[in-house]
């Protein structure tokens, strides 16, 4: 309990609250922009936090993470354009409400639904983290190696129909993560004799190129984008109050979100769509869904944010990120000296400050989101040619900020080009991120397991945990091919509907 108290004291320091507010505003603005989601915002902000104390940096990133997810819904509700992949389901009843002149009411539902979803996710995170960590302590390097392989295989599976592309990108991410010194003996690899590469490719620089710069090119290509925003201030509070009259919808959406968040590879778009479909099935008036049903907006909003926080459960406890955005979040934790996994609670009160920061982030976006909803929504009116130079300049600044080398901007640019080409060909980019982040975990645990077993590869098969994980990994890789042979999907089932709606395909973009 003392640690919690210390964590709370750290989190509520004036400077931390200031960065919490700054991160929330930044997240809300970025989230409101169509097409830019949590991945983009967290990536862009990551290198800027390099010079900050660990607690401040993580609190700021938590605020950005939470606020961007809520901000995503603004564009969905107001202009029927999902702000990010997780907000697709919010369009279905959010935009009809807007068309009926109830945009304020819809935004009220969205804000409080997202807030409650975040709180539910947080409760699960805090309650399950110590249990999962004690479980993680029982695992050895062989199990860690296999769990990382399982995470990689599940992510390739999530890019439905693109398994080969997913595996190629995951392997490519792993391969590039081996640039620099090897984790066992410190031998320099693929450095071309350059000191810039001895520590490897800087993670934030690569991600900025892959996600921010490539996205800037796409936005520049798209051009245009002056949107009409309807009157929205009226009815916000009635939307907020209405949410509290629907506790079952909130709890149902929250549990679906957390469960899918914990599952690697199933992200916020799957969670929000499944929550929407479950809510529709449970409703006494399913015919109202798609025509502005408040529950049809509330359920995906709750599920989206609870999934976002639930996603942090395997990240913090096992050190295995469940999605692209949590992979970047994990990188931020490592960068600031917090090692996710069994050692998570070994850093004194700092991990508890992170927990408190995640909770405060939910309150911050809820309060600021309600207070400044009118102003933030105007962001969708900014023309793309004005917005793109700002994104590029911030990306260049972020790339430079990490180490202060001009060459890092060039590296970001090259990855931007590669990311853009892959994006145009619809390759699942986040598979690369996962590979890149998990590279060290895979290699070091593999060699450690071999050292312990005196060079016997059988250690991966003789340890029950490792063997089970290996079977799961093989099943997940072969599942897309086995599924049609083993099961004939029943028409009308939720899973078939989710498949038809395309959930999961872009889940890792969350």
């Amino acid at each position, binding site marked *: 309990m003392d640690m919690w108290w210390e964590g709370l004291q750290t989190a509520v320091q004036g400077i931390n609250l200031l960065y919490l507010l700054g991160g929330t505003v930044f997240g809300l603005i970025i989230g409101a922009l169509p097409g830019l989601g949590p991945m983009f915002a967290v990536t862009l902000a990551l290198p*800027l*936090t*390099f*010079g*900050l104390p660990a607690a401040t940096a993580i609190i700021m990133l938590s605020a950005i993470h939470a606020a961007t997810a809520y901000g995503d819904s603004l564009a969905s509700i107001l202009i029927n354009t999902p702000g990010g992949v997780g907000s697709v389901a919010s369009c279905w009843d959010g935009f009809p409400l807007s068309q009926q002149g109830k945009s304020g009411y819809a935004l009220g539902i969205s804000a409080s639904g997202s807030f409650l979803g975040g709180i539910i996710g947080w409760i699960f995170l805090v309650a399950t983290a110590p249990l999962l960590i004690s479980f993680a302590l029982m695992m050895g390097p062989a199990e860690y190696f296999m769990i990382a392989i399982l995470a990689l295989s599940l992510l390739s599976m999530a890019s439905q129909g693109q398994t*080969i*592309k997913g*595996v*190629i*990108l995951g*392997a*490519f991410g*792993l*391969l590039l993560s*081996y640039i620099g010194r*090897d984790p*066992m*003996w410190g*031998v320099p*690899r*693929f450095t071309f004799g350059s000191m810039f590469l001895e520590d490897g490719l800087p993670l934030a620089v690569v991600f900025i190129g892959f996600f921010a*710069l490539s996205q*800037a*090119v796409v936005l*520049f*290509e798209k*051009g245009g984008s002056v949107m009409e925003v309807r009157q929205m201030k009226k009815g916000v509070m009635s939307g907020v109050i209405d949410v509290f009259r629907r506790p079952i919808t909130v709890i149902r959406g929250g549990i679906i979100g957390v469960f899918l968040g914990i599952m690697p590879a199933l992200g916020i778009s799957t969670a929000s769509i499944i929550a929407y479909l479950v809510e529709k099935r449970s409703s006494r008036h399913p015919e109202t869904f798609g025509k502005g049903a408040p529950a049809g907006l509330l359920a995906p909003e709750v599920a989206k944010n609870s999934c976002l926080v639930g996603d942090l459960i395997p990240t913090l406890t096992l050190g295995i990120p469940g999605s692209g955005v949590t992979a970047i979040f994990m990188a931020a934790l490592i960068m600031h000296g917090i090692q996710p996994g069994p050692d998570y609670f070994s850093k004194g009160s700092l991990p508890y400050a992170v927990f408190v920061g995640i909770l405060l982030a939910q309150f911050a976006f809820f309060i600021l989101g309600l207070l400044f909803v009118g102003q933030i929504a105007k962001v969708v009116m900014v*023309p*793309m*040619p*004005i917005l*793109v*130079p*700002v994104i*590029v*300049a*911030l990306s*260049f*600044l972020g790339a*430079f*900020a990490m180490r*202060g080398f*001009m060459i890092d*901007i*060039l590296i970001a*640019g090259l990855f*931007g*080009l*590669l990311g*853009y*080409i*892959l994006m*145009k*060909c*619809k*390759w699942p980019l986040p598979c690369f991120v996962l590979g890149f982040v998990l590279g060290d975990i*895979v*290699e070091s645990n*593999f*060699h450690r397991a071999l050292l312990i077993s005196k060079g016997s590869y059988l250690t991966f098969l003789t340890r029950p945990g490792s063997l089970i994980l290996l079977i799961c990994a093989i099943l997940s890789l072969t599942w897309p091919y086995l599924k049609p042979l083993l099961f004939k999907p029943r028409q009308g089932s939720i899973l078939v509907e989710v498949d038809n709606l395309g959930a999961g395909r872009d889940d890792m973009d969350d």
Partner: protein
Amino acid sequence: MKYLDLLAPGIIGIIAGALLIMTAKLGRTASLFPKILSLTIIVLVVYYIVEELYKNFKQPATLASKEEAPGAKEAPMSGRWEIMMASMAVYLGLIYLIGFAAASFFYGIFLPYLGGYRRMKVTIPVALGMAALLVLIGKVFNIPLPAGLLITSLIN
């Protein structure tokens, strides 16, 4: 099928091939994973390319119509991406010469212009604001922004 469909795996395959050659100089432990991964990537890339070419060879008409269908997943390359990439290269060069803040100001004016946005009454204040914002971020987050070769030599 478009050239980009083959370009992306081609680039990945070439990089993997180059790194595979470089593993010859490394010890067994250090080269194990890079070797396995490079080989896996090369095999999968070759498989993917052959599969795509075979599909295209078998059903060229179907594939072409699929690509041109309204709402088809793959967006066309508009040609603006080359401008964007070139502008980023120029921006990087300008940062090197005249520093981050000044280069960002010019970039903030010229990129919207190239993108077809000609309202200078909007772009100039936005560009100024952006340059000021970058300087402010540099100060707040302790990032020493590059001053630029020309500016530094002029000051000295």
